[in-house]
């Protein structure tokens, strides 16, 4: 049974790794988004393996269901701008891509391998009721602040989206005044 769990874990890690590479290095932006969705599904599987099915379902719902669709809308709205992408990369980009991962891998990886020595082999499953009571009891302020952040993000998106109309109206007003 434990062997089966290990095989499933390795399979999901493989999904995450392959998806990550597709996400970053695919030439087509739609293919890159598909890689992101693959990675997110792999992450959801990892949550399920950690005995946190609620978070796994939320990962599929929020990330795959909402965030990926938003990114797809961004791609669809700016489809014209994606074509003819023949800009060459700067040499600083090649330099940074080779050099940037070294720092976190060296520092964080060293401390991870050094410090993490024990782990619970079989995590216990916890009920969603506990989480709900936790959110509505001691953590009610962050919970409300998250809803405030989401509301403000929504308002900001709407205001930014209507910007063109406002500029057009200002230009019309200016033209009328000049007449």
């Amino acid at each position, binding site marked *: 049974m434990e062997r089966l769990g290990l095989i499933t*874990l390795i399979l999901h*890690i493989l999904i*995450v790794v392959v998806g*990550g590479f597709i*996400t*970053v290095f695919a030439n087509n*932006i739609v293919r*890159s*988004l598909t890689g*992101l969705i693959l*990675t*997110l599904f792999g*992450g959801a599987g*990892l*949550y399920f393996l*950690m005995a*946190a099915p609620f*978070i796994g379902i939320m990962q599929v719902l*929020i*990330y795959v269901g*909402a*965030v990926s669709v*938003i*990114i797809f809308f*961004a*791609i669809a*709205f*700016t489809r014209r*701008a*994606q074509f003819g*992408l023949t*800009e060459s*990369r700067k040499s600083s980009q090649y330099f940074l*891509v080779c050099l*940037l991962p070294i720092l*976190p*891998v060296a520092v*964080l*990886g060293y401390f*991870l391998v050094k410090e*993490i*020595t*024990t*782990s*619970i*082999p079989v*995590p216990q499953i*916890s009920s969603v009721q*506990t989480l709900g009571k*936790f959110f509505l009891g001691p*953590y009610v302020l962050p919970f409300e602040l998250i809803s405030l*952040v989401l509301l*403000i*993000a*929504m308002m*900001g*998106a709407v205001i*930014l989206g209507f*910007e*063109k109309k406002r500029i057009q109206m200002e230009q019309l007003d200016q033209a009328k005044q000049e007449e």
Partner: protein
Amino acid sequence: MNYLLIYHLVALFLMCMGLIGVVWRRTFVGILISIELLLNGAGLAIMASAKLTPTADFLGQAGTLVVMGLAAAEATIFLALVLVVFRRFGRIIVKNTNLLRG
């Protein structure tokens, strides 16, 4: 090699890929996708730290849910910004977006 270390190494991998993507991608949408990778790695690390240690595990679940909510808000704002940049410049390549206007 225990499970907690494995999960943290996966999270570290996601963080590295996100950082590489932010540098490597040339369009705003590509950068947004890379930032999602970064945030997903953060959520995974928080969850593993709470679930595979003797910490109360609803702390980790709450933290991961907060990260997910912030990721959704960030994606919304980023979509609006991409649309504004697309209208003003006609392209969404980061290199060409170099005009500041009051």
